[in-house]
């Protein structure tokens, strides 16, 4: 029973944690185990949403722009990682780094070419352009690389840990840890560094920020670089985790990440993390205990209910305009 085993080619490593096992025995049925397992599933799914939502929320924070192309930048990141790992045969770290740089530059370029000229236009105009950019990225990729899915090489070990009947994979842990680290890092950057303060100033009032001597263009570019490279990193990680990528893979995660960001309070970095995790957990619990057919509907419904109770998201401040 103990010790490593290989089932279906996957390395399973059992780990014994007394607490969980006893908890399960105490409750006396598998429902408890199932519940914990669903929580794990939810957290792992949620940390993926969070990972994408972090970049989303950053870009939103500075331009108040729902950047619909973010999901597609994530897709491009996945492809860059894929080619780095297959064509160039780079290992994990160089691959992800390359993907981050490429998507970061891509994000900056998109901002420069498509969003910057519209900075003083109605927000919805930029939003429409973002939809255009999104379609452009999707279908250019499709034209160049065909719509067929590609399979990612296993850049990370596919080890599975079993803890008293619960199952966690190494990759899930990596994604969770990476997203937590990034969240902490970003929160620090935004709140405590000069660049972060510049970002907040620009986000509130670009003109006034300029008067402080802040280079608005540079700040926005930087934000797009960081936000997009986060998307790129997410693309590679998720590509490895699910091991299948295709040109339209960004649409749904992009949408979910956006929901996650809004759920947590859009523009707020810990909010993106919280929103992502909550969304993931809710989806898992609903699939697990109610019905998977209504999973997405329920996710949306919960989002709406939370917004109705707290109109600016969970961590959002209820900013009433001072009259």
């Amino acid at each position: 029973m103990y010790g490593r085993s290989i089932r279906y080619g996957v390395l399973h490593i059992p780990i014994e944690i007394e607490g969980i096992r006893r908890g399960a025995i105490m409750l006396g049925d598998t429902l408890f185990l199932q519940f914990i397992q669903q929580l794990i599933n939810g957290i792992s799914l949620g940390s993926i949403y969070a990972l994408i939502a972090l970049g989303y929320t950053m870009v939103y924070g500075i331009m108040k722009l729902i950047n619909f192309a973010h999901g597609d930048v994530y897709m491009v990141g996945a492809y860059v990682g894929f080619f780095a790992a297959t064509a160039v045969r780079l290992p994990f770290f160089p691959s992800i780094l390359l993907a981050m740089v490429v998507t970061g530059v891509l994000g900056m370029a998109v901002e420069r070419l498509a969003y910057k000229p519209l900075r003083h236009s109605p927000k919805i105009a930029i939003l429409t352009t973002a939809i255009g950019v999104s379609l452009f990225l999707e279908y250019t990729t499709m034209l160049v690389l065909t719509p067929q899915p590609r399979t990612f090489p296993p850049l990370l070990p596919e080890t599975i840990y079993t803890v008293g009947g619960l199952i966690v994979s190494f990759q899930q842990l990596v994604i969770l840890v990476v997203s937590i680290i990034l969240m902490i890092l970003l929160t620090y950057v935004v709140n405590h560094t000069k660049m972060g303060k510049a970002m907040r100033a620009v986000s509130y009032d670009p003109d006034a920020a300029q008067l402080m001597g802040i280079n608005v263009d540079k700040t926005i570019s930087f934000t797009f670089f960081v936000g997009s490279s986060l998307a790129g990193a997410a693309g590679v990680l998720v590509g490895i985790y699910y091991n299948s990528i295709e040109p339209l893979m960004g649409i749904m995660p992009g949408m979910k990440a956006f929901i996650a960001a809004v759920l947590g309070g859009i523009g707020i970095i810990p909010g993106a993390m919280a929103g992502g995790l909550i969304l993931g957990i809710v989806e898992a619990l609903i699939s697990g205990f109610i019905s998977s057919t209504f999973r997405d509907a329920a996710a949306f419904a919960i989002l709406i209910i939370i917004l109705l109770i707290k109109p600016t998201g969970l961590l959002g401040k209820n900013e009433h305009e001072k009259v």
Partner: protein
Amino acid sequence: MMIKRLRKQDAIFLLISFVVFAVFQFLISERILSSFWRLNIAVICLNIILASSLNLINGITGQFSLGHAGFMAVGAYVSAVCTMFFHLPFICSILAGAAAAGVLGFCIGVPTLHLQGDYLAIATLGMGEIIRITILNIPQIGGASGMSGIPTETTFTWLFFCMIVTLFVLKNIINSNQGRACLSVRENDIAASAMGINTTEFKVFAFTVASIFAGLAGGLFSHYFGIAHPSSFTFMRSFDIMTMVVLGGLGSLSGSIIGAVILTFIAAVMQSYPEYRMIVYALLLIILMLYRPNGICGDKELVNVILGRFKKGGKNDGTVAENK
């Protein structure tokens, strides 16, 4: 006096519509237009209804809705159920679809319209998806396979007629006390409520009216193609409609018409180059937006833009309809 001028304006509007109708009807009945273009003209009519009604929410009232496809779906399915299961006459089914969408729009609008900006956008987008997923899970109306074999009773005449009604109603709403209230909500809702305007009421009003027309479009849609399928009502369609509104110019009805015509036309022409279709469409969208960030018409009506060119100061004639 003024009212006479306004009625005359309505008459001119109807006359022009009739002429346009006659021309197209001729082209269609004489089969000068190929079936492909006949179909695309129908699609244009549908898109005009959808875009101009969404404009009432997004352009006139300044609320950000991304759920129009959901209401369209409700109209499509309810009307299809009416004709197929209850064998109601076509017109009744269409109206039932529109009414159902309106009721749902009202019910959804009341709670959600307290939300603002992007939060409202995501909530409406969610509503649209909830509607779609719900449909997907009702086997009686076909679930994932959708409904097919719906009698194809929507003719060009019907479409055109409904489109004109939509435009006429929207135009006159916008130029009324109610329409001004909607505009004031868009401009500054704190000031609007200080003027005695119940802002929530008018947000819900605009949302409901727009949903009714989206439902109407849905009913016409399902009875034109003979099918109602969940894949026709994804958020991508809501985006499409929004794109038409923005491209035409937020707050401009003629803009919505132009936006709908241009984007549908581009999509149709590009049909011959399937691989490049979406890329070209996307590029054109980006370029058009960069070139005219406020939309083709801005927030003005085409008539005013043209009139303003010809007779300077002509905009000062004090008509209600002209100055928005």
